[in-house]
């Protein structure tokens, strides 16, 4: 479903990814591990098309990323590191904007049913400004419940969640993969899920890059 072939990525003149490849098939879950600053968020941004890698290709459902630019929302759901929530709107209004952007129309009743999953029904009219960090994360994860795409990509979804919500998250993920979906996410907490594969990103030694640069431009 998702295929990443030999990605080379530079950021701030440092090589972050070197010949990185990944294959994610149906009913599979891949967990990305790595230290802080090693490039997990950059990798996920590259997969979703926000950053262009120096070389390498990404295929989603067999099609290259360039071809599916305008149909991305129908093929995968990405939950990035930032909560993309507007501060002066309530939870309900934020979710309604998300549904509008994804061209999904659901009845109010169904929306409220899904709010109950993460215990958000009682606070659905509160402004996002007044929520705690964990509650904002729960709202961001609720967006997953409304998507009907098979591929889910998440960046540190368990950040700030309490024990109850982590259990709910585990149930949702297992349900999704059983139904034929695939999940790729990065985390530094072990979620104790039935994960198909754990991939660790390592910090790349940049001496080679530095030497290449000095070969090109001359030593100091």
């Amino acid at each position, binding site marked *: 479903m998702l295929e990443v072939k030999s990605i080379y990525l530079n*950021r701030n003149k440092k090589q972050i990814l070197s010949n990185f490849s990944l294959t994610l098939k149906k009913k599979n879950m891949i967990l990305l591990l790595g230290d802080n600053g090693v490039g997990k968020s950059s990798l996920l*941004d590259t997969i*979703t*098309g*926000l*950053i262009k890698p120096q070389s390498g290709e990404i295929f989603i459902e067999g099609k290259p990323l360039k071809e599916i*630019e*305008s*149909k*991305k*929302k129908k093929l995968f759901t*990405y939950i*990035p*590191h*930032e*909560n*993309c*929530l*507007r*501060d*002066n*709107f309530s939870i309900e*209004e934020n979710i309604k*904007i998300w549904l*509008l*952007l*994804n*061209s999904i129309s659901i009845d109010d009743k169904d929306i409220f049913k899904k709010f109950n999953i993460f215990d958000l029904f009682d606070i659905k009219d509160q402004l996002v400004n007044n929520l705690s960090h964990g509650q904002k994360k729960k709202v961001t994860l609720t967006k997953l419940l409304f998507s009907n795409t098979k591929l889910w990509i998440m960046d540190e979804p368990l950040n700030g969640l309490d024990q109850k919500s982590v259990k709910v998250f585990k149930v949702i993920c297992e349900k999704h993969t059983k139904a034929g979906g695939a999940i790729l996410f990065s985390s530094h907490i072990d979620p104790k899920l039935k994960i198909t594969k754990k991939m660790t990103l390592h910090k790349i030694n940049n001496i080679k890059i530095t030497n290449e640069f000095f070969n090109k431009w001359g030593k100091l």
Partner: protein
Amino acid sequence: MNDLGILVRREFKILLVSVKQVLAYSSFFLLAFLLFAFSVGPNLKILSSIYFPILFMIILFSLILTADNFIDEDFKNGSLKELQFLGFSAEQIFIAKSLSMLLSIVLSNFFLIPLTSLFFGINFSIILNIFFIFLISSPTLVLLSLISALFSLQIKRNKFIQFIIVTPFFIPIIIFASSMNISNTENSNNVNFLILFGFFLITLPLSIIIGKLLIKETNQ
């Protein structure tokens, strides 16, 4: 086209809620006018002759100062990123934001221009002419100030750079708008109107390309 419609609907939803912004813009406008009136003195003749220059200058300053509001929050909470990975192209995002900014500026000035002209003793027919000049030049001004806001999105310290960037490009518009005000003959009015419209036609494709480049820059 449907994508653009969705984005515009989202922008209008945001506009409807942010009444405080409009109030801030209007109060700055009125306050600046009052200060000018006090610094010039009670002579209505002088006041009515400098009405148009002051009006234009205050509109320009308030455009540059409030252009931030339309794009800063979206950048900070990750919504700009979200719109891009949902498959909306950067051009569509830019056009939607400039349409919403244009609407809010035109609507607020629709009430403010007659109000401030009362203090300066201007006739009704002249107000119509002034509003017409403002209408023709406002799309170009909105596009330019949105671009300057995009330039200064990632600058943390000296945000006044927006003024320096956008001033050279405002100058031709101010020149022709004020010459349209001064010369009242049919012929020269037509020429200036065509020139201002020509500026809009040049600025539109240029600013869309540059807006796209700048929005893609914010991801790096």
